[in-house]
C-alpha cells in the first residue's frame, strides 16, 4: 500500500530553477534543407547553456547530472566539462523523479537534466525494419511478419477500439490537433505555426487508420535542459521557484505484448492508480489544475489522460475535445506550447519546461492568466506517470 505520509515528505522540497530549449523552428528549417551541423550532444549543450543562464547558477554549482535517453552519460559529462558526484540516465519524467529523490536523499544538491536528440537529421526510424525501441517494447517488432510495426500503429489499434466503445468521432478527436495548433501559433518556438482547422485535419491523409497525419507527433531535432535544486536554495534565488508537489506512477506490463491492457482497458487502471497517488501526495485534485501538459506522441493520448485522470466523466470526452475548451482562452488549457503534435517532439522534456514557463508567467502570448498549478501526465504503453508542479508562494 502507498504510505502517503512518507511520500508527502518529498512534497515541495525540490524546485526547478532553470530551463533551456533550442531553437526548434530554425533547426527544423535547416534539417529540411538537408543541412546537418549539429548532433544530439550539440543540441544538449546549447540547451544546457540556456538553462544555466536562466537559473543564474554557475556550472560549478551543479553536482548531479541526468542524461536523456539518446545520450551517453560519459560523453555528455565530457562535452559539458562536468565532473559530478551523482549521475544517471532517464526519460523525461523519470529524470525529474530521480533528481528529486537524489536531492531529497542528499546525494546531490543541484542536478542538471539534459536531453538532446538528432532524430530528424540522424534519420531515426519509428517503424519498419530498423524501428527503434524494439528492445524495450517487444510489440514494436514481434508482429513484423504481419506488417505490424510502430508505436503509432499500436495506438491506431487502440483508437479503433476506443472510438467504437466510447462513441468518440474522428471529427471530435480532431479537436486535439486543432487546439494544440492554435497554441503553437502563439508560440514563436513552435515548429508548426500554419493555421489548422477541422476540415484540413479531416482532409489529412491516414497513416494508420483511424489516425491521420495531424494525429502524429513531429519528428524534429533539439535539446532541453532543466536545473533542479532544493526548495530552500530556490527561495534564495531571483526567479519564482517552481516546486514539485506531487508524483504519481504506475507500470502495468501484464500482457503488454498481447495488447490486452491497451485494447481492452485503454490502460485506464494504470491511469487511475497514478492519478490517486499524484493527487493524494499534492493534496490537490483535477479541478485545481490551471494548465495540463499531456505526453502526446499521438492525439489519442489526450482523451485517454483526460478520462483516466478524472478531468471528465467516461464517455463525455468527445464534447470536451470539440468544444475548444482545451485551446487558447479555454478553461482547460492542454499542451500550451503546441505539444509534440505542433510544437516540438522532445519526448516529454519540453512539457516540463512549459509547466515552468506557465507557472513563472513567462509564456507571453500563450500565457494562461494566473496559472498556479500545472500537471504533467504521461502514458506510454501502460507506463503511466504524472507530476504536479506549483508556483512557490501560492
Amino acid at each position, binding site marked *: 500500500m502507498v504510505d502517503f505520509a512518507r511520500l508527502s515528505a518529498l512534497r515541495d522540497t525540490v524546485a526547478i530553477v532553470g530551463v533551456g530549449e533550442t531553437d526548434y523552428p530554425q533547426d527544423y528549417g535547416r534539417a529540411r534543407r538537408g543541412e546537418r551541423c549539429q548532433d544530439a550532444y550539440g543540441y544538449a549543450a546549447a540547451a544546457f547553456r540556456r538553462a544555466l543562464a536562466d537559473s543564474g547558477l554557475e556550472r560549478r554549482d551543479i553536482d548531479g547530472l541526468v542524461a536523456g535517453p539518446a545520450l551517453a552519460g560519459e560523453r555528455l559529462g565530457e562535452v559539458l566539462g562536468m565532473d559530478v558526484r551523482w549521475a544517471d540516465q532517464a526519460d523525461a519524467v523519470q529524470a525529474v523523479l530521480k533528481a528529486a529523490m537524489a536531492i531529497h536523499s542528499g546525494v546531490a544538491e543541484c542536478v542538471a537534466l539534459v536531453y538532446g536528440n538528432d532524430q530528424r537529421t540522424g534519420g531515426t526510424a519509428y517503424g519498419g525494419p530498423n524501428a527503434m525501441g524494439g528492445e524495450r517494447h517487444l510489440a514494436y517488432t514481434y508482429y*513484423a*511478419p*504481419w*506488417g505490424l510495426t510502430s508505436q503509432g500503429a499500436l495506438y491506431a*489499434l487502440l483508437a*479503433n*477500439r476506443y472510438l467504437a466503445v466510447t462513441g468518440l468521432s474522428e471529427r471530435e478527436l480532431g479537436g486535439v490537433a486543432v487546439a494544440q495548433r492554435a497554441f503553437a501559433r502563439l508560440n514563436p518556438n513552435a515548429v508548426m505555426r500554419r493555421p489548422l482547422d477541422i476540415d484540413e485535419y479531416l482532409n489529412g491523409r491516414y497513416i*494508420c487508420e483511424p489516425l491521420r497525419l495531424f494525429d502524429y507527433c513531429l519528428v524534429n531535432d533539439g535539446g532541453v535542459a532543466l536545473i533542479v535544486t532544493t526548495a530552500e536554495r530556490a527561495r534564495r534565488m531571483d526567479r519564482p521557484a517552481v516546486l514539485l508537489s506531487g508524483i504519481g506512477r504506475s507500470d502495468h506490463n501484464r500482457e503488454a505484448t*498481447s495488447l490486452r491492457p491497451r*485494447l481492452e482497458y485503454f490502460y485506464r487502471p494504470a491511469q487511475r492508480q497514478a492519478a490517486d497517488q499524484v493527487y493524494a501526495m499534492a493534496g490537490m485534485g483535477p479541478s485545481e489544475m490551471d494548465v495540463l501538459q499531456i505526453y502526446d506522441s499521438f492525439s489519442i493520448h489526450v482523451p485517454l489522460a483526460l478520462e483516466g485522470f478524472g478531468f471528465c466523466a467516461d464517455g463525455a470526452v468527445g464534447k470536451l475535445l470539440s468544444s475548444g475548451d482545451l485551446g487558447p482562452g479555454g478553461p482547460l488549457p492542454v499542451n500550451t506550447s503546441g505539444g509534440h503534435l505542433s510544437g516540438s517532439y522532445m519526448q516529454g522534456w519540453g512539457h516540463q519546461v512549459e509547466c515552468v514557463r506557465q507557472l513563472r508567467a513567462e509564456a507571453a502570448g500563450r500565457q494562461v492568466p494566473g496559472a498556479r498549478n500545472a500537471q504533467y501526465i504521461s502514458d506510454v504503453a501502460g507506463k503511466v506517470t504524472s507530476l504536479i508542479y506549483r508556483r512557490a508562494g501560492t
Partner: protein
Amino acid sequence: MTTTHRPAPRRGVFDEPYWRYAAAGELRVQRCAACGGLRYPPGPSCPECLSAEHEWAALSGRGSLLAWTVFHRQYFPGVPVPYIVAAVRTAEGPILIGNIVGAAASDLTHEMPLTALFEDVTTADGPLRICQWTHPDDRPHREEQA
C-alpha cells in the same frame, strides 16, 4: 493480401515450437501444466503462477475481431499498402495478431466472428506459413490455400 516479401519473425528460444506447428498448419500456444493458463507470445514461465512447465495446446481457430487498423504508410519495402492488421480475441482467450483476408475494411465490425487459416508467404529467411483470419463464410473457398 498480395505480398512479395515479408519481414522474418523474431525467433527467441521459446518461439521455435510455435513456428514449427504453424508450418504444419496447426495453431498452438503454450498452456501452463500447473494452472492451465494459456499464454502468448511464448515465454519462459506462466505469468499467473510462475511455473515453467507447459505443453503446446491447439486452439480451435475461432475468434472475434477486437480491433483493426489499415496501414496507409508503407514501412516494409516488401509489404505494399493498404493492408489490414487485426487483433483477434481467440475463443480460448489469448489475443493474436494477423491480417484479415477475404474482406475489405468496410466489411469489418467489432466482435464479428473470425476463423483462422494459414497463408504461405516468403521472407528474407525463406518460406513461412503464418496464421491469418477470415470471416467464417469465406472459409470454404479459402481453405485450400492452407
